[in-house]
């Protein structure tokens, strides 16, 4: 079983109710991409959170830029290629009368840049800034200057008018052709570490312990994968499938599911045991492979002689309940999908725990959540 590639998606949108006959994919997320707000008791997507920059640094030289809110690029000697964003190698050469020149070469493509001989000591960024003299940059600087001065308004209005009248791509391109555009090495973009808040209740869903660039320890971490069960579908026989639920919590969970009319479910209400420290015990049998000796032993232990029993035609359909399998913290429920053209199965899941999961003792008395889970039908 994979938590990474399981074709299972959660519908996560508090403003738009799901239309189960035409599901808007914008609001479908993999479980691993979602947060879980324990205060609101619902999954939260990237559109329902408030991120804030916690710290920022250059991944190349590890300089901490957290105290520089305006900087987005490294101002040290960390440059990237303007054409392909790869890092640039820099070679310095000495010349007569204390002159120096710098040669930048991209580690990936053919781009390179030579500063020529420089006599005044200056940062590499300063040197490049001074060398930006192509006509395009000059025009940009001129426009910027004009924006500051009201007396040159007429010229600014004239330029803006000219730009706004360009409605064809070719015209815009011909205007750009008038200029000579040069490419210069650019400072490396900084890496941001963000803390996350729930946009509804404003509580923190993710926060770091410290700002040390290379340390990634979390003080607060509410990820959906730690609270909501991992679900998936596997094919059993013709139009019979197994729907698997795995409980990630350290407490018992009871669940209720409902679905659309084209689906025949064997069971609508069930409970899932607390998660186990034994890795293999937490995997539904359908995901254990007979090709691996460890997995095969576990299968024999679970099923005994029945492991090699052949399922007769119609046997499952007649007695769905008999094919339900329950593990330590998981359940596999047979379902019949009557409509062959159905590509996805939406199920509504309601979860409840009598006790609060570990770490949430002070927040809630128990989990009480409901959401739509959309599963792709395997071929």
């Amino acid at each position, binding site marked *: *079983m994979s938590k*990474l590639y399981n074709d299972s998606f959660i519908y996560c949108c508090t403003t738009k109710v799901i239309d189960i006959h035409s599901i808007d994919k914008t609001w479908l997320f993999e479980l691993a991409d979602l947060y879980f707000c324990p205060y609101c008791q619902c999954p939260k997507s990237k559109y329902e959170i408030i991120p804030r920059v916690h710290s920022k640094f250059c991944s190349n030289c590890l300089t901490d830029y957290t105290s520089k809110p305006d900087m987005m690029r490294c101002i040290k000697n960390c440059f990237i290629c303007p054409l392909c964003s790869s890092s640039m190698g820099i070679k310095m050469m000495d010349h007569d009368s204390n002159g120096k020149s710098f040669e930048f070469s991209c580690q990936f493509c053919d781009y390179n840049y030579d500063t020529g001989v420089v006599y005044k000591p200056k940062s590499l960024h300063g040197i490049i800034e001074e060398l930006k003299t192509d006509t395009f940059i000059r025009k940009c600087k001129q426009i910027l200057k004009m924006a500051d001065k009201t007396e040159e308004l007429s010229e600014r209005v004239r330029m803006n008018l000219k730009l706004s009248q360009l409605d064809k791509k070719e015209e815009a391109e011909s205007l750009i052709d008038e200029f000579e555009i040069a490419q210069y090495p650019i400072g490396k973009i900084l890496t941001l570490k963000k803390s996350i808040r729930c946009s509804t209740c404003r509580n923190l869903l993710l926060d770091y312990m410290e700002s040390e660039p290379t340390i990634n320890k979390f003080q607060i971490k509410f990820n959906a994968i730690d609270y909501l069960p991992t679900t998936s579908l596997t094919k059993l026989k013709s139009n019979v499938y197994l729907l698997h639920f795995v409980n990630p919590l350290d407490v018992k969970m009871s669940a209720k599911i409902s679905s659309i009319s084209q689906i025949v479910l064997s069971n609508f209400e069930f409970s899932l045991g607390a998660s186990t420290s034994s890795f293999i015990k937490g995997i539904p049998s359908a995901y254990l492979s007979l*090709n691996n000796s460890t997995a095969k032993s576990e299968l024999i232990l679970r099923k005994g002689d029945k492991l090699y029993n052949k399922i007769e035609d119609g046997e499952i359909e007649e007695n769905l309940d008999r094919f339900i399998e329950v593990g330590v913290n998981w359940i596999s429920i047979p379902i019949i999908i009557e409509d062959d053209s159905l590509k996805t199965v939406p199920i509504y899941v309601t979860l409840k725990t009598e006790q609060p999961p570990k770490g949430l003792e002070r927040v809630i008395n128990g989990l009480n959540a409901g959401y739509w889970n959309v599963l792709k039908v395997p071929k």
Partner: protein
Amino acid sequence: MNWTETRNSNVNIKNVKLGANVTILDNVNIEASKVDSVQIGKYSIIKENSTIRLPSNGVSNIGAYVIIGNNCDIRSLNIGNRVMIEDGCVLNDGCVIYECCLIKSNCIIPSKMIIPAYCEVGGVPGKDFYIKPLNSSFKKVIEYEAKYLNIHY
């Protein structure tokens, strides 16, 4: 203790320091010229037809719970723990991948590039290359995947 598992005989693991429960599948080529010049941490898996070569400066370190997909060409200096590299990726000379990253299939990582922790990386430089933040869930998800693959092949 189960030190390593290789599925066939044509994988040369001489000079490779392997952690517990490492899985190396068919036709993997590890070019380790000196003793311990390639180190692979526990529960890592290298899938079929992939190559591990030494970077021009030093040895190749591959962390724990690292999944290297089929047909990959790896010449990195360092790959942190819990990194998922999908099929057909090329990691060029001396690049560094920090912990918990997802490298999408057919991605090319340029020489000496440093990928910070918790990033998803995809595409080809100059064409559609991107680096974007990865949810912290992936630490658990990738570790789970590596442990699962260990009892799958």
